[in-house]
């Protein structure tokens, strides 16, 4: 019962608000009582909108306009004469205010809209590049490690290789040698093949991140050049890797 009364009240309330809003809107639209006889030419009207009004540099926005009683329409800058209604796409390089001028026998009207272009901050490569390549390589190049008898890139390997790829992107002149290594288990011959597959997996991953294949050389040492000489899992893991070496040219 309580609920129903509440609903009824809110219903009345909404009706009231709608009526009031309708009344408000009508007021400016309602034309003032005009003197009917003199058939003077009507004044032109024009509207201009940009959707979206905020874009990133390189994106485009759509300008659309609508006019009445105009014989000539011009949108500036860079759009020029247009028809009475329509839309066009614009790709401003910086924030721009577009203006439309409508002229007709009844006079002249203007409208404008502003398109804000967000310009990304310029990359500060000059700062980073102060570190010489070799030093940066030693600090940032990461080897990929593998599971026993496997050559697929593990999640930690993806992170390591992505980091190495970033470095290679920043230093486009850098060329690298990927050495494939295996642990002491297994035999010399098969491990050469396995190490070879590891270097190729690492190389393909870098290529997929946009590093050109020509910058990447590979060699597989199998288990012939270990980093660590003990027979422990820790040592074996150290040896199962794709190892990066910076080539001087």
């Amino acid at each position, binding site marked *: 019962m309580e609920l129903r009364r509440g609903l009824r009240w809110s219903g009345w309330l909404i009706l009231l608000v709608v009526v009031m809003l309708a009344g408000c809107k009508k007021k400016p639209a309602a034309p003032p009582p005009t003197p009917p006889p003199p058939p003077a030419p009507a004044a032109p009207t024009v509207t201009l909108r940009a959707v979206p009004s905020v874009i990133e540099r390189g994106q485009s926005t759509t300008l659309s306009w609508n006019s009445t009683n105009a014989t000539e329409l011009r949108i500036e800058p860079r759009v020029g004469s247009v028809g009475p209604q329509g839309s066009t796409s614009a790709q401003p390089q910086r924030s721009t205010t577009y203006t439309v001028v409508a002229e007709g026998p009844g006079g002249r009207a203007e409208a404008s809209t502003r398109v804000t272009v967000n310009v990304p901050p310029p990359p500060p490569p000059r700062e980073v590049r102060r570190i010489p390549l070799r030093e940066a390589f030693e600090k940032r190049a990461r080897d990929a490690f593998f599971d026993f008898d496997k050559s697929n890139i593990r999640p930690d390997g993806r992170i390591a290789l992505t980091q190495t790829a970033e470095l290679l992107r920043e230093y486009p002149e850098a060329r690298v*040698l990927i050495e494939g290594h295996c642990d002491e288990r*297994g035999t010399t*011959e*098969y491990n*050469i093949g396995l190490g070879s597959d590891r270097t190729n997996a690492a190389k393909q991953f870098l290529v997929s991140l946009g590093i050109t294949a020509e910058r990447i*050389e590979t*060699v*597989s*040492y199998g288990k012939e050049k270990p980093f660590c000489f003990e027979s422990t899992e820790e040592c074996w893991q150290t040896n199962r890797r794709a190892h990066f070496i910076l080539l001087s*040219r």
Partner: protein
Amino acid sequence: MKGRYWLSVGLLVGLALLPFQLHPQQDWFRTGTGLGVEKVRLGVPAFAAGSGEVRRAARVFHTVLRNDLAVSGIVELVSPSFEPLQVPTLPAELRPEEWVESPTRAHMVAYGNLQFSGNQLFVNAWLSDVRNPQVAPVLTRRYRADLTEEQARHLAHQFADEIVGRLSGGLPGIARTKIAFVSDRTGSKEIWVMDYDGHNPQRVTRCRSLCLTPRWSPDNSRLAYTAYEQAAASPEVPRTSIQLYSLVMNRRLAFPYLGGTTTTPAWSPEGTQLALSSSRTGDHEIYVVASDGGRMRRLTFSAGVDISPAWNPRTGRQIAFVSDRGGSPQIYLMDSEGASVERLTNGEGYAVSPAWSPNGQMIAFAWQREKENFNIYAMDVATRQTIQLTRDSGRNEQPSWAPDGRHLIFQSTRSGRNQLWLMLADGTGLRQLTFEGRNTAPHWSFSVR
């Protein structure tokens, strides 16, 4: 008659004995044939030195001859303490009745003398059947050579091969065969060659970086191996390539770089082609090329590693290889066109390094089964029956058959670091052949023709 008898014994050894062999310490002849066959009991008394100059050569000759015959696996040597007091140096001095009676109980006696004449060493050697004293000596040989210890060794090997050839019905002796292997005794891994008994090691390559996987050509004149060489265009980038070395000309032969990591060469039985593994497409596959590196054709098309090809030496129509297409490395077999691929090993563990026996019936390989170290196994290709040849002693890898099909060489860590070991094909008769540095990847030469 005797020859045919021993031939049949030899064939039975190759064919039938291994699958039925139960305990590696058992005598392989008796277990193998089950026919109550006895090894020939052979007396090899000291060879007489005709003069002071050849006394040392006579000692070397005798020692080497006894060692060769002991290793051969087909004779039982008479202990010197059981020899008669008067040992023969000529057929006329042989008293057969003294050799046949207990405890000597010899069937055969090898004896002779060494002389020095005209600045040359002469060896007069005989093999007599003391149970048939009326028959002329089975072998009568006269050898001549320069008087050096090496020559005395060589002549002893030659006489041993003749005795083994005669007693085994024409199967080749192995006393003059050689072993190619990889040794790091100079600090870098190089290809070396030594006599089958471990003597006379000679370095073949001067790679200074890494040289691996030596394989004899079937005529023993060339070695193919894997080298990490510098690419001329880019000296910092090592490339893994196959090289050929002529042991006749003592220099490298031209062989092209085939791209990627190219490794594990294996000669076809006629020596006209090489099977190999290359990652030129980004993935290791088996290829066959002519022995000059031309006419490359691809045999395998599978993701993962395909490596270590080995031709059936009898037919040349099958290639065994290692592939991890099923997960772990296993031994596979295909025909020499790359068709009819089948897995030979059962999928368990890690099976690598296939090596065909000379008669094409067995494949020896290294296998690491669950919770075990690597051991040498041999599989009868027709029946897939597999027997274990080594056990409970270090890592044992890289088997290679002797041309007689009765011996295998392999690498083992049983004495500490990797060394080369010899054994009979049933796992008995183990002998360590190398002691200096680390020695791996043995490959036995083919018969001396």
